[in-house]
């Protein structure tokens, strides 16, 4: 019964956060709504015995990613009102129909069998502590884990390159020469 109450409360909180993210005119409010949703997700992860992933969710998403988002929002400027006029006719109505249809299709398709496969391979009392996750991550999935190192390195180098060799880098040196 406790699990039902926890699920009900935080499902509503997560949905409310998503609605705020969708409807807020100010991007900062959108970021806050997404933050609320991500914290609720972390609660669900704890309930689902994924303790390590819950910690990573809070550290990486609620900590790093949302801070990055807020930093860029502050840099770009929050006072600009978003233009809500539609360039494509009926786009809002079409979007609602498409999103609703997507949800209905996923739920109807998934209702046949949410999870398929034999549970003979798993252990029912599996708890995602750091030890169990690390056993799998550094045992079975070592190659995949190492390839994420490449991915992150490439992403970091690409980000630095975008910042260094952007148009304003050239323009600022021109400005200095002019001054």
């Amino acid at each position, binding site marked *: 019964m406790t699990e039902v109450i926890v699920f009900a409360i935080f499902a509503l909180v997560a949905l409310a956060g*998503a609605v705020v993210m969708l409807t807020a005119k100010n991007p900062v409010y959108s970021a806050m709504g997404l933050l609320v949703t991500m914290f609720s997700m972390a609660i669900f992860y704890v309930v*689902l015995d994924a303790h390590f*992933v819950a910690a990573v969710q809070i550290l990486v998403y609620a900590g790093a990613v949302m801070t990055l988002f807020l930093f860029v929002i502050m840099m770009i400027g929050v006072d600009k009102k978003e233009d809500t006029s539609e360039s494509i006719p009926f786009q809002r109505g079409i979007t609602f129909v498409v999103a609703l249809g997507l*949800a209905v299709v996923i739920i109807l398709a998934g209702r046949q069998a949410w*999870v398929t496969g034999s549970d003979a391979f798993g252990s029912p009392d599996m708890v995602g502590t750091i030890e169990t*996750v690390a056993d799998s991550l550094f045992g079975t999935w070592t190659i995949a884990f190492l390839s994420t190192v490449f991915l*992150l390195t490439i992403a970091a180098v690409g980000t630095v390159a975008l910042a260094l060799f952007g148009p304003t880098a050239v323009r600022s040196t021109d400005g200095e020469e002019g001054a």
Partner: protein
Amino acid sequence: MIVMADLTVTVGWYMVLAAVLFSMGAAGVLLRRNALVMFMSVELMLNSVNLTFIAAGNELGLVEGQVAALFVMVVAAAEVTVGLAILVAVFRRRSTANVDVLSELKG
């Protein structure tokens, strides 16, 4: 099955919640004009998929669901850093994050 006599939270509840959140993220990508908010919607979609991974992994008693969620988080982090860097570069050149204005590639 969805039918519950004694009302316990099954994996289906999490899957339905994740499906609804995924659809809301998709609606956000289609609806919003601000590229930042579109990025946030993509993050919401990735998060909802993580929830399905972990719910399924918990149901089957396999840790692979959580490993998959961790990999999704890594990809999402890489995507956010590169995406926001592109966004800042575009903003420095064009002074807007509105995707309707950034339409030079339109045929």
